[in-house]
């Protein structure tokens, strides 16, 4: 059974909390990584590495730079 968006959001929240210390509850779809969550580019690489392991999807660098919001990542993983 494919993971629901809610499952992915929870998993992503845990990863972001582990890497940045931001509470998982603040990781909501509309948030921008840079503007709202203050996550820098190297932290985004860490998050991508962890997300690849967690969800079993490859996130190429040229795609990663287009993932601006939490919603972008949820959509990418689901597709």
């Amino acid at each position, binding site marked *: 059974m494919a993971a629901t968006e809610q499952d992915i959001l929870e998993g992503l929240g845990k990863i972001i909390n*582990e890497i940045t210390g931001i509470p998982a509850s603040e990781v909501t779809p509309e948030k921008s990584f840079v503007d709202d969550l203050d996550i820098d580019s*190297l932290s985004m690489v860490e998050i991508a590495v962890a997300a*690849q392991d967690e969800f079993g999807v490859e996130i190429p660098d040229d795609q990663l730079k287009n993932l601006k919001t939490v919603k972008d990542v949820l959509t990418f993983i689901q597709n």
Partner: protein
Amino acid sequence: MSANRVRVVVTGLGATTPVGGDVTSTWTALLAGQSGVNTLTTDWIDSVPVKFAGTAAVDPAEVLPRPEARRLDRSEQFALVAAREAWKDAGTPEVAPERLGVVVSSGIGGISTTLSAYDTWKERGWNRLSPFTVPMLMPNGPAAWIGLDLGAQAGVHATVSACASGAEAIGYAMDMIRAGRADVVVAGGTEAAIHGLNIAAFAAARAMSQRNDDPQAASRPWDRDRDGFVLGEGAGIVVLESEEHARARGARVYAYCAGIGYSADAHHITQPEPEGRGQIMAMTQALTDADITGLDVKHVNAHATSTPSGDVGEVQAVAKAIGTHPLVTSTKSMTGHLLGGAGGIESVFTIKALQERIVPRTINLDNIDDGIEVDLVYGENRALPEGDIAAVNNSFGFGGHNVTVVFKGA
């Protein structure tokens, strides 16, 4: 020595060691004669002949916030924990960023990161590596992270001289202040080298104790039955400051960091020079630099690692360079040998001994080896005299590096 030379004082101490997670708990354990050495239970233990080490009493990853800890090699974690303790202990000095420096060294750097990253790369590919792999494995990483933490801009350095690294860092820091390049410098050594490869490699050099049936008795400097050193881990950090800067802010002064001596044996890559020529030169230079004589030195925290070849030669060199009168101890009997961290923690211990006028005993010293004339402290702790006294910390490293630091009571 020039009468108007800048004098350097110690205003802060920090340590995390196999016997305690900070200076107070570590010092209390040393005075109680407690060993921090224990049997290891790691997954690689069957592939090495040495089954024990001095693991840190407090896991630094449990002390630091998780997002910070995961970006740091363990050697960097130790350094940051000890540096924050030392900085707080110094009263969080107000100092202009361009007048604040850091000199913190390790002997081997982020070797556990290097090895685990190699596994990740081979097994799972380059894109599974943390983007922080390089700053975790680089040997200047501990100094750089402390520099970032404090905003130090006067220069951030990491001297490397194997097991003399930590002491050399303190000497370099003193030189920075004397040269007028900084008013305050955070200095010391760190090491996190308890890994199967390091133990295998040191065992291959026939340098490690293999007393697997009694690990806490394995580190026994100067004892007839010593059979090698015991690996320890942790960090020791001091805050050094120009006396003028420290007095102006009303800082508590632990001691003067009064002299430094460096030399190289130019003899053999791992064996000490048998006549102690280089060690004597380092100690003699340090006394001259501190403008004192051997008679002023009442205590020596020896390098003495519990190896058959090194321990006796060192105290014979002490007898020639300083005299037979100082109270000599090896705290490595309790902490094990922290390699590049040794000069850091042992400088902290030398300063504590001066401050509290007490020398912790060398444990496990049951039968003193032949050829030793100095006054070894064993059986019980010994008191240091009141008055104007000095103490010495020796650190020597593979490569023939010899470093002696002189501290004087405040």
